[in-house]
């Protein structure tokens, strides 16, 4: 970690670049976000609390957070399996699949939304066979769940992949030569050292899913209290001229994002403390 050593710079331009950075940051990010908080201060605490704890808001938040959590869990498991296959095995098309992982990140959310809906609607390629089995995906909470899995998968894969690649092979070999069977080596030796990366990937996927709008609204039924996500409720409140409600929900979500960022920060600190610097 030579970089972390403080150095005195003789380079010019600190004042100028710092000033520009802070100005631009303020104009684009800070002032707009401050406006959001300012708007909620127009509400009394009771009003704010009333909005946030109203049944519909609570349900929307529950749906957003609950399904995001569930989707992030699926991403965690499937992401690990995908990383494992991509890093440890050689199979035809491996490089292609490696590149494909990034598609949910690069594909515009509206495109993902219409595509997933088309795919999982009752007449869709996957929707039709699933409907035969009595499973409805599109326009149910399962649809939201699917969309959230779609957008979250690259986050877990891309966070865990480099760590697994970089894992010291000697640890595994040592464990194996000491008589640990493969099962033990994987679950007692390898996975524990991946935990910080796994949790970070999980948190990133979770954060992304909570705020997701474009890919979800097409496939969600948008039924209040059942399949209405919090960002959609914000949009609905806006179109009902209820700015206070919209901003109150937005503030709750924003605070949640701050907390998640904070958590990710912590996870990283933990990761650093655990992994010896090479």
């Amino acid at each position, binding site marked *: 970690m030579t970089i972390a050593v403080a150095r005195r710079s003789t380079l010019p331009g600190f004042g100028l670049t710092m000033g520009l950075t802070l100005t631009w940051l303020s104009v684009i990010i800070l002032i707009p976000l401050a406006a959001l908080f300012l708007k909620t201060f127009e509400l009394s605490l009771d009003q704010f609390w009333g909005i946030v704890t109203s049944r519909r808001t609570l349900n929307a938040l529950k749906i957003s957070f609950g399904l995001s959590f569930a989707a992030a869990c699926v991403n965690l498991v*499937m992401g690990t399996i995908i990383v494992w296959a991509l890093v440890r095995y050689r199979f035809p098309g491996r490089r292609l699949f490696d590149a494909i992982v*990034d598609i949910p990140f690069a594909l515009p959310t509206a495109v993902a939304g219409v595509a997933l809906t088309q795919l999982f609607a009752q007449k869709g390629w996957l929707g039709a066979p699933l409907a035969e089995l009595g499973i409805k995906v599109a326009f149910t909470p399962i649809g939201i769940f699917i969309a959230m899995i779609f957008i979250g998968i690259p986050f877990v894969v891309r966070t865990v992949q480099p760590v697994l690649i970089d894992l010291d092979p000697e640890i595994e070999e040592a464990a194996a030569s000491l008589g640990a069977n493969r099962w033990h080596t994987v679950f007692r030796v390898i996975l524990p050292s991946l935990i910080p990366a796994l949790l970070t990937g999980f948190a990133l996927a979770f954060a992304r899913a909570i705020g997701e709008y474009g890919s979800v609204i097409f496939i969600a039924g948008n039924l209040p209290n059942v399949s209405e996500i919090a960002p959609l409720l914000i949009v609905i409140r806006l179109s009902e001229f209820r700015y206070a409600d919209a901003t109150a929900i937005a503030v709750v979500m924003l605070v949640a994002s701050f907390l998640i960022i904070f958590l990710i920060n912590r996870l990283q600190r933990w990761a650093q403390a655990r992994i010896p610097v090479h």
Partner: protein
Amino acid sequence: MSMQTGLATSTTQLRTYAPATDVSVAAPAPRLEIARAEPGTAQRNLRTEPGPIRFIIIALAIAFLSVFVVLPLVVVFASALSKGVVAYVAALAEPEALAAIKLTLLIAAISVTLNLVFGVVAAWAISKFEFTGKTFLITLIDLPFSVSPVISGLVFVLLFGAQGYFGPWLQAHNVHVLFAVPGIALATIFVTFPFVARALIPLMQEQGTQEEEAAISLGASGLQTFFRVTLPNIKWGLLYGVLLCNARAMGEFGAVSVVSGHIRGETNTMPLLVEILYNEYQFVASFAIASLLAMLALITLVAKTVLERRLDEAEVPDGD
């Protein structure tokens, strides 16, 4: 300590969007991967699973990626071409489609340019100098990554809407921000804010300041130093950030949807037009526009892969 945390966050956050230039937890993926592409036979026995398990894991990974990632992409193109190539081309030649493409390009040009300038400036300040609160500053720059796009649009409604904080003044001076190009551009700049800066900061931090200091001591001006010394070193990383910034700028839906006003042929970007056409039973046209965006995503991915190679190559000589 705080410095370390900041850097650590930067890698993780970045890894999902930008190349992981080695700072803390791990080294960039592709290079090492190539190095270990052919594990020795002795190692293979110890470091892998029994055949059937291997097969199941590979099958699961391929099945999952095929169903969740490949199929949606295929659906886009299949639906776009479902009525033949003529209908597809006709859909894209519609004036409304052309207007949306033009607007999308304009918005991307504005927001990428501004974020490019800002990204370089911010990366210079953050990576070449030491100051307190650096971690906090990086966190602030990261913020738009985790803010819901809807909220990104909402904040500008609160500021510039006729009922918003600056609304009455803007109305009085006949300045249109919301439901016009400036509002759409602002919302897009907000959501794409971190991309360039986040691609550059770890890279420039790693490169240190020695080369620049040498240039300065030889009498070069600050700008000369930047253009002759720093820029050549960071050009691939910069391109990488611009690439991702552009992909997101062209594809943004939620934030733009809130501030657009949906005026046909005027304030509809391509993602918004996808939704509108979809709601007008013009499925072929909707998926035709969607297919253009999907192609953009594919081109982005290819370019990204190429750039990642370049970045790795650039790093190898002065590696650990």
